């Protein structure tokens, strides 16, 4: 699964924020590489800098110093528009609260990133969106509107949206945070399936349990990496899901 190709490389990335008179050091020199095909969890308590790191990885923000290479491209000196294009082509976001467009069908939601890519025409967009929805197991709910779906289904749509542009990396921000245990495991099964298919996934969370299902875990504290460990014994989310007691409604 893991290849030699480096998808993400951070070199001594620092990010300072000026709040009033004070300078807050959110990231104090973070360096790591992520290879293609890794499933990395980034963990840390609130205030550890994990959101700042996620913004860096997602090209939503640029480092104060240091350099970030996404798929070989240096990001720090890029303009806003250049970064928007980079996000569009290389990154798939999955958010905690799904962030689907209201009153919009699953297909249309998934098509959204391709709307900003002029290489796709309407037919290609729709085909790609249907393919992505089938990959997350929603092939039968293409025309359901976002308000007609459960939380798990909405998050699947969001994952399909992150897949549709065939990104270099999928960035999940607390992607299971709003879901109940069973649905959370269903999501983890899906992420593990994508991982098995060779996708690179970065999963930012404060839930230590999730690290057991990933291939590598990076622990942040006070803006620095405290631990960076490979997981030799990846648990199967599918098995865990089977062991969960069936809900009595």
């Amino acid at each position, binding site marked *: 699964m893991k290849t030699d190709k480096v998808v993400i490389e951070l070199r001594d990335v620092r990010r300072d924020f000026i709040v009033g008179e004070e300078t807050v050091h959110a990231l104090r020199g973070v360096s790591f590489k992520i290879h293609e095909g890794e499933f990395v969890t980034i963990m840390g308590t609130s205030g550890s800098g994990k959101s700042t790191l996620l913004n860096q990885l997602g090209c*939503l923000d640029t480092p104060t110093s240091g350099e970030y290479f996404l798929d070989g491209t240096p990001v720090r000196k890029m303009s*806003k528009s250049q970064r*928007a*294009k980079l996000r569009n082509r290389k990154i798939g*976001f999955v958010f905690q609260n799904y*962030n689907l467009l209201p*009153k919009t069908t699953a297909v249309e939601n998934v098509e959204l990133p391709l709307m900003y890519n002029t290489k796709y025409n309407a037919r290609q967009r729709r085909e790609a969106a249907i393919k992505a929805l089938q990959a997350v197991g929603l092939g039968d709910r293409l025309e359901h509107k976002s308000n007609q779906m459960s939380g798990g289904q909405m998050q699947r749509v969001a994952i399909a949206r992150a897949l549709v542009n065939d990104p270099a990396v999928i960035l999940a921000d607390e992607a299971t945070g709003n879901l109940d245990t069973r649905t959370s495991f269903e999501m983890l099964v899906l992420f593990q399936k994508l991982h098995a298919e060779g996708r690179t996934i970065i999963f930012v969370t404060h839930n230590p349990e999730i690290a057991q299902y990933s291939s590598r875990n990076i622990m942040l504290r006070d803006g620095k990496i405290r631990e960076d460990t490979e997981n030799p014994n990846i648990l199967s989310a599918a098995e865990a899901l089977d062991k969960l007691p069936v809900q009595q409604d």
Partner: protein
Amino acid sequence: MSILNLFKVALRAIAANKFRSFLSMLGIIIGVAAVIIMMAIGQGSKESVRQNIQQMGTNVLTIRPGAERRGGVRRDPSEMQTLKPADFEAIMKEKKFVTYVSPEVTASGQAIYGANNTTTSLYGESVEYFDIKQWPVVRGEEFTDEDIRKSAKVCVVGKTIVDELFPDGTDPVGKMIRFKSIPFRIVGVLKPKGYNNWGMDQDNVIVAPYTTVMKRLLAQTFYSNIVCSAITEEMSQDAIDELTQILRTSHKLKDDQENDFTIRSQQEMMETMTSTMDTITIILVVAAAFSLLVAGIGIMNIMLVSVTERTKEIGLRMSVGARGLDISNQFLIESIMISITGGIIGVIVGWLGTYVCTAFGLPTSIPLWSIVVSFLVCTLIGVGFGYFPAQKAANMDPIEAIRYE
């Protein structure tokens, strides 16, 4: 994002907030309708004035002696004796753009019949005068070319003269009246014209052959004016140029000499009148245009609310790759759609409103360009007042926007 998709997105956003979109459109609807109705009323009044003047003949040209403007002292043109029978003959011989010509001499004084008298104006004219002014004789008949040749003491009179001199209702045709002690036999009565736009009684007039007035009354050999008619209103300018040329030749003026006569067209007169109407129209339209401005502010307000409300959507769109330009286009197109849709409805409402005004007796006429202008203005409002909210959206920080609650 392609334009087509931008329109789809905007349409969806408007449809999602139908009532709110309608309210912001309402300002535009009222503004556009008001502008169109005001313009229609202004234009309608102008046309009714124009029609009044048209009754007097829009193709009428008047040649007066003397230059219109001259530095220093200006002589009273009536003292000038530059318009001579030779000029009249030259015009008659060479005219192409001119149909009818009538030399004109005027005198004012008292007309007497029996015990009744009235102060009036006497116009010495040729037979063609009635054609120039499109002023038919309704009782009796016009005097003839024969009368002109013979300087016959005949005249036609206006309705006011009939009323003043024949209050008991006797038929004036064939009666002898005296004007400054010269007897004139009435051969016809002119069709009543009423008062003109300046409040002058156009029927208080006696028209007699110009030869008679010149020889028997004034003993002069020059004309006060020459009145002509151009073939059509549009050819007035050609006719003026032609007459100028004929008269300059006839007066033997050198190239560097100024004209010693002035040609005025009825058209100029009309322009003076309609320019007053134009001023009133402009005032009305400006007032209505202010309501459009207010409507634009309304749209800006709604768009600002809409941008704030959709912060999260903006954040999402940005994180999946929308550039600032994509976002600002999205909101701009939305505001343009609101204002143009409002504009279209406004044009329809304005149209209906104009019909209502017509039903209440106001003269109206919708100038086509007012619709075109309303459209352009609406687009401008959409862009102008949508720009600031669109920029606000485009400049959002995706990090904050996506986490906005």
